[in-house]
């Protein structure tokens, strides 16, 4: 009796290109394309080898590194929970924003803040070929902004940030899908914008792979720090990972005269034991860093 150790391959032809198979593995295919690609991969010996070899490598590196797109029902449930939780938090307490320490930690981890290699900035050139004045730092700032505003259902507030983000990603080259996601989010109605908050975190992880991670992390950290100072979230400053980002940036230096000074100011005003006496000036120090880096 033949065992199912073999497979009746049907050599269907019209194989998807490697990037489509990769997008399938990353869970980034459009919902309508997924069944077609799954069906092809299951029957085509060559595509199955590409698929299983890629998954096998990712598993061997780190099982948790394999993309984990959520099934539609879970995404819907999570969206409902997030939106409801956001509304409850917003109404029940001031400040209204979600705990910045939570999302900046996610962003920093996803963007690989802990062992950032020397990584070139992805193509930031306009159509003329001249370097674009934007940077990964600004992308980081916008990601946190867009995340926070989407989280609390502020579609009108999120819209300009998302459009700016889309424009930056367009300039970066080969980030069209990510830019489209931002444009799609910018058109979301207030009741639907909350669903894009977790996608901003995923986007940060994705971009962290292609941008100068240090700049991206520093940008998201600076904006989250400003929000934490404004909201007097002491836990953000108690988190050793946030302090580590500051220390790394201080040690690296050379951010530019204004930015270096602003960073030193942030360090000087960094709350000790969660007790900052002058939250507004700490927020100003972060603001100065943002102003110095984002032009």
């Amino acid at each position: 009796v033949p065992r199912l150790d073999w497979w009746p391959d049907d050599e269907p032809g019209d194989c998807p290109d490697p990037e489509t198979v990769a997008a399938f593995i990353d869970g980034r295919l459009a919902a309508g394309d997924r069944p077609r690609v799954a069906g092809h991969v299951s029957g085509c010996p060559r595509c199955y080898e590409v698929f299983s070899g890629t998954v096998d490598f990712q598993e061997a590196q780190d099982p948790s590194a394999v993309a984990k797109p959520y099934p539609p029902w879970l995404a819907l449930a999570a969206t409902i929970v997030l939106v409801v939780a956001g509304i409850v938090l917003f109404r029940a307490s001031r400040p209204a924003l979600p705990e910045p320490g939570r999302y900046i930690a996610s962003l920093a981890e996803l963007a690989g803040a802990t062992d950032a290699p020397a990584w070139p900035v992805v193509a930031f050139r306009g159509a003329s070929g001249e370097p674009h004045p934007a940077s990964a730092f600004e992308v980081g700032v916008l990601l946190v902004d867009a995340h926070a505003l989407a989280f609390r259902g502020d579609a009108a507030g999120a819209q300009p940030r998302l459009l700016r983000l889309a424009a930056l990603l367009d300039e970066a080259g080969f980030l069209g899908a990510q830019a489209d996601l931002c444009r799609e989010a910018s058109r979301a109605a207030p009741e639907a914008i909350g669903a894009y908050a977790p996608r901003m975190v995923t986007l940060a992880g994705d971009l962290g792979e292609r941008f100068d991670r240090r700049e991206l992390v520093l940008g998201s950290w600076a904006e989250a720090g400003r929000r934490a100072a404004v909201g007097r979230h002491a836990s953000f400053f108690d988190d050793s990972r946030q302090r580590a980002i500051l220390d790394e940036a201080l040690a690296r230096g050379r951010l530019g005269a204004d930015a270096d000074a602003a960073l030193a100011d942030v360090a000087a005003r960094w709350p000790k034991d969660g007790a900052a006496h002058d939250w507004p000036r700490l927020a100003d120090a972060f603001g100065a860093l943002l102003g110095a880096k984002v032009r």
Partner: protein
Amino acid sequence: MSEHGATPTPEQVFLAQLPLIERVARHTCRRHHLPVQDAEEFESALKLKLIADDYAVIRKFQGRSSLSTFLTAVIQHFFLDFLDHLWGRWRPSAQARRLGPVAVELERMLTADDLPLGEACELLRTNRRIGMSTDELEALAALLPARTARRFASEEALVGLASPTDHADDLVERSERDRLRSRIEAALGRALAELSGEDRLILRMNVQEGQTVAAIARALGLEPKSLYRRLEQVRRDLREALLRQGVRAGDVDELLETPTPPPGRPILHTRPSNGV
């Protein structure tokens, strides 16, 4: 403004990704039990391929997936091309891969080179200095799927070719077995066609590769608990579809068994002799 103001060239992207590229190449060669010499040749050929035509592969990347997954998938493609160059269309069976490099080498000799078992064992012991006895190698061969290499010969040569067996009973038994195999293969093909593409993929990962439910769930972004139930359902559906087509219950159960044989137990594996 970033301190790294310059746009990375495809070359810079290649250099930045070189550690990943090398890791993927080595892992893939190990996975297929490629000898060290061949693995080194593959790694060199891969790098040349990636820098060819001004890094055309990297320039083609559109950002529809992560860069690392894209490069890993591209390397798998190149690896299959490399195997074509190395082995022709022959591929080790999943079972041989599970059993290790000696099994892969033995299977290649038996199917691609079409050597008799005794000669293959002798070659492994003498030329390749495999520290296994002939009995152990024969036991290993018994665990491999029974596959036949596709051979082309002139009619004159075929006329002069002696029958591989002189026993009529053996011929009848083999003919019966082949008929059963063809019938079950056809039924299996039809039964699989009734499943959704994703269900077929889940089933293939589980029964052919022996992937755990947790690993499949991670790879396809599914929730493990519901995947476990789904896999059970898929197996039930497939079983019913095969039974409806007249396949005996005992044969169906054996067909859907988990593909990890106990050591030393010879299992008859058959596979379509399509040379793949």
